[in-house]
């Protein structure tokens, strides 16, 4: 197994902004460029910290991941570009809302999910931590397409999975393998 690498926060944010710009192309509303709906995640804290300094991208912190799903759904209905950033524990906490809104409701929601405590030298499926180990199987049970962000080369998956969620009218997720830098 290739060792995962940490992804620099600016690379992720530039990818978000490029994606949002493409989504906004031709739209009546131009500001903000896009929305990040988050519940704090240790694994993606450098991205969240850098986003706080971004004027073009609006960040809304929610109390729970259930709420993040609801806000993202409303924004999508209004035609706004939106990404949800949470951690794996939050995915477990919000399964009913994932089912009710994103799956049964056929609302596209794209998730960036941090795999806190993922061991760099182990496949997540072999992690000693249940929170890491069960994340992909849980997504599989619900039929949520997912992939791993294992290094800088994988940021191309962000627009791919974002657009996949829109095209399939449902959820799609990327799992952030190591803490961002």
């Amino acid at each position: 197994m290739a060792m995962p690498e940490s992804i620099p926060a600016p690379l992720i944010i530039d990818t978000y902004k490029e994606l949002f710009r493409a989504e906004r192309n031709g739209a009546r509303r131009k500001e903000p460029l896009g929305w990040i709906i988050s519940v704090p995640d240790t694994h993606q804290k450098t991205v969240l910290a850098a986003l706080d300094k971004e004027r073009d991208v609006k960040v809304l912190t929610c109390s729970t991941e259930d709420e993040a799903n609801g806000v993202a759904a409303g924004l999508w209905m209004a035609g706004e570009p939106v990404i949800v950033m949470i951690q794996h524990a939050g995915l477990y906490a919000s399964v009913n809302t994932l089912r009710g809104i994103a799956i049964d409701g056929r609302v596209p929601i794209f998730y960036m999910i941090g795999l806190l405590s993922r061991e760099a030298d182990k496949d997540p499926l072999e992690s000693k931590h249940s929170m890491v180990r069960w994340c992909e199987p849980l997504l599989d049970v619900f039929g949520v397409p997912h992939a791993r962000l294992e290094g800088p080369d994988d940021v191309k998956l962000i627009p791919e999975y974002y657009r996949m969620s829109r095209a399939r009218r449902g959820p799609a997720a990327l799992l952030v393998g190591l803490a961002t830098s």
Partner: protein
Amino acid sequence: MEIETPMQTTAMKPEDVLKVIAANRGTAICIPTMTTSPSWRTIAPDDLSIGCVGFMGGASTLGLGLALGCPDRRVIVFDGDGSLCMQLGSLPTIAGSGARNLTHLLFRNNVYHTSGAQGTPGGEGMDWVMMAKGAGYKDAFAVRSLEELEEYLPAILTGEGPIFVELHTGLAEKTPMTDRGGVPFPQQVETMRTRLQA
């Protein structure tokens, strides 16, 4: 058997509240949930509403997303006290968002009517207005009669939000269990998105 609560004898009928809102909402998006959903379908059968059933507690933040995405349009959430108990954290989330066009109506009856009228945590002792104010809502107040509702209507429909209104209501005539049906949620979602993009 009809279920009675202490509030039922003096409280507003939720259907009467909904009729007043329907008659005055203008172009506002409305988000009913649980026991307000069946009645709203017949009182306001339009494509500017989304009935939330199946993810209890989610109406307030779905409404928040719509409010943030449509800053020039009023969004009115018809929440329930049982539902809000399930997503109590939405109070600071909404307050912190600063959504100026969001009105959060709470249809308070102190029970989980849909599932058999079990008492809500805290029951009559809950001070929802204080909770909303404490969370940071721009304004929060209680309405106990249709006369008060008429009086506060301008603030409810046009005041700077987020606004929280605790409506002292009795039990609805219908629940999602006694009156199933209506347009499926995914279809409501698609219709709303199409309407807002037009």
